[in-house]
């Protein structure tokens, strides 16, 4: 019997030097709580998931909703066993197949057929079981002779068809999909949706993350709305979609307004800086171009890149060499 139980799941996504001290200047209040900071104030990680709990029983079709960066993909990756939780429990009964990234999990230089073998073996199947499914996978993917060519020659849609065909052919108990079907054409999407439904009828569990309302409402019964790494709401997919869309519209409006004011503020600050630089240049009696004005004090926030001792030294040397 397949089952998913997630309890108080926390995941912090570490950045390891990928962030810079300047990051955070544009954070909104909501984002602030998600940044993990080191003792020196640098952003060292992101609280990707903060206390997620839910369960899914056999036959469940669960939709994952949320904005970009809300934690959907991270949650799927934790369910797939790729990322380990920092806290909390993830329990999955049943063989799990996750298709989280279209470009991964294939050996691009190997042929389509070879990849069927590789992924079958990776799924813990024997060579006999793989051979039994090969014809079915070839038929469902509709790739024909392309299966004898390296996967690197495939289009995104073709890769997706192959991945989906392999993943579902081996009949997992739990299927985890992220934004997958968007790469297929309408005909394939229909075929895939049908296959997913049949799969769930066999008492599997489907977890599907997508931005497409029609795909979600066609495929899923229940929905989980993720917001800032937390569960915002859970319920029948139709209700949650309605609530979600209304909220997204509200947010977009307020975001547009904020963006306008921010742009205006940034432009004003820059104009003030230029005016100041021009004034200084005029005082020195030289016709310096405002853009190259050397304040000597380093960045004032608008150009954080140049605000370090090395950059300052280099600028000094350049100005020395140019005879100023």
């Amino acid at each position, binding site marked *: 019997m397949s089952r998913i139980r997630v309890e108080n799941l926390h995941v912090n*996504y*570490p950045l*390891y030097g990928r962030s810079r001290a300047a990051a955070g200047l544009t954070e909104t209040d909501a984002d602030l709580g998600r940044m993990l900071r080191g003792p020196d104030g640098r952003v060292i990680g992101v609280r990707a998931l903060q206390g997620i709990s839910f369960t899914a029983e056999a036959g469940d079709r669960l939709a994952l909703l949320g904005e970009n960066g809300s934690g959907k993909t991270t949650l799927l*990756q*934790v369910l*797939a*066993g*790729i*990322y*380990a*939780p*920092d*806290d*909390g*429990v*993830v*329990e*999955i*009964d*049943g*063989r*799990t*197949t*996750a*298709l*989280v*990234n279209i*470009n*991964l*999990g*294939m*050996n691009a*230089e*190997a042929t389509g057929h*070879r990849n069927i*073998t*590789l*992924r079958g*073996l*990776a*799924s*813990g199947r*024997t*060579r006999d079981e793989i051979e039994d499914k090969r014809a079915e996978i070839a038929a469902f993917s509709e790739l024909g002779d392309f299966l004898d060519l390296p996967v690197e020659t495939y289009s995104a849609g073709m890769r997706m068809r192959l991945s989906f065909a*392999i*993943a579902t052919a*081996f009949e*997992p*108990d739990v299927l985890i999909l992220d934004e997958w079907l968007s790469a297929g054409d309408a005909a394939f999407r229909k075929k895939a949706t049908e296959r997913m439904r049949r799969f769930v009828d066999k008492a599997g569990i489907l977890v599907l993350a997508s931005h497409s309302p029609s795909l979600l409402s066609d495929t899923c019964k229940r929905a989980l709305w993720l917001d800032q790494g937390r569960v915002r709401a859970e319920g029948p997919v139709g209700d949650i979609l309605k609530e979600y869309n209304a909220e997204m519209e509200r947010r977009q409006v307020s975001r547009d307004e904020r963006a306008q004011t921010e742009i205006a503020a940034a432009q004003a600050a820059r104009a003030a800086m230029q005016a100041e630089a021009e004034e200084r240049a005029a005082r020195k009696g030289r016709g310096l171009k405002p853009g190259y004005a050397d304040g000597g004090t380093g960045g004032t926030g608008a150009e954080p890149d140049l605000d370090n001792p090395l950059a300052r030294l280099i600028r000094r040397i350049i100005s020395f060499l140019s005879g100023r």
Partner: protein
Amino acid sequence: MTQALPTRRAAPGRELAGFFSDLAAGLRMTDLWRTFAWDEMQQRYRRSMLGVLWIVIAYAIFVGGVSIIFSGFSRQDGAFFVMHVAIGYAAFTFITGNIVDGCQVFVGARAWIHSIALPHSIHVYRSICRSIFTFALQFVVALAIMIAAGWRPTLTGLWVLPAIAVFLLNAVAIQYLMGLISARFRDITHLVTSITRLLLFVTPILWTRFDLRGVRSTIADFNPVAHYVEIFRAPLMNLDPRPLSWAVVLVLTGLIWLGAIIAAARMRRRLAYWL
């Protein structure tokens, strides 16, 4: 993709047991890492006419060239020197190759680690499998050279079997350890590459231990790789293995495993985040 184990429970804790079950689970998926390794070999030599035969050719060229030039610097007999190089360099390549490959073992498998929850040891075994293949081919070349030089197998030669076992045991721990460390600290790869280059010259391959006297011969004993080479080469050259070499190798093996266990307990869970 698919999880091999039907039931899975992920929660922090029990890191040590996790490492050993990872090693065991990976070992059971023999078919998978053998296939991975074979594909990798083929891709490396794809579209070259002689293909994998290049391993043999490259090795013969190296041994031949070195023997011609460097035997002049050694007081040893010509046939002895050629055998010394032929066996020694194969062992050296295996040991240092595993250290260097280890740095890439997880970084290079990034795409798979990010898409399928496989035991991490799969990637280690795949990498070792490939290095065994190269080692075996090089050993065949060495054997051919030795037979041509008049070598015949003796009972002392059997000491090579425990040496191979110890090599494999080391390879697992070295690759796992280097893989974890260099996934987190990317500078390690560059450091290791530059040290290995030096190691070739301070290991008795191009010169023999018997050519050294006094202090220099003592200093040569401080190079751990020399002892690994020694336990493999000596029996094949009808020399009794030095107890010192075996002792050093066994102690180091223990230390490397200890290092791997500690690193795995602390780092294994976070590996996917570093890639």
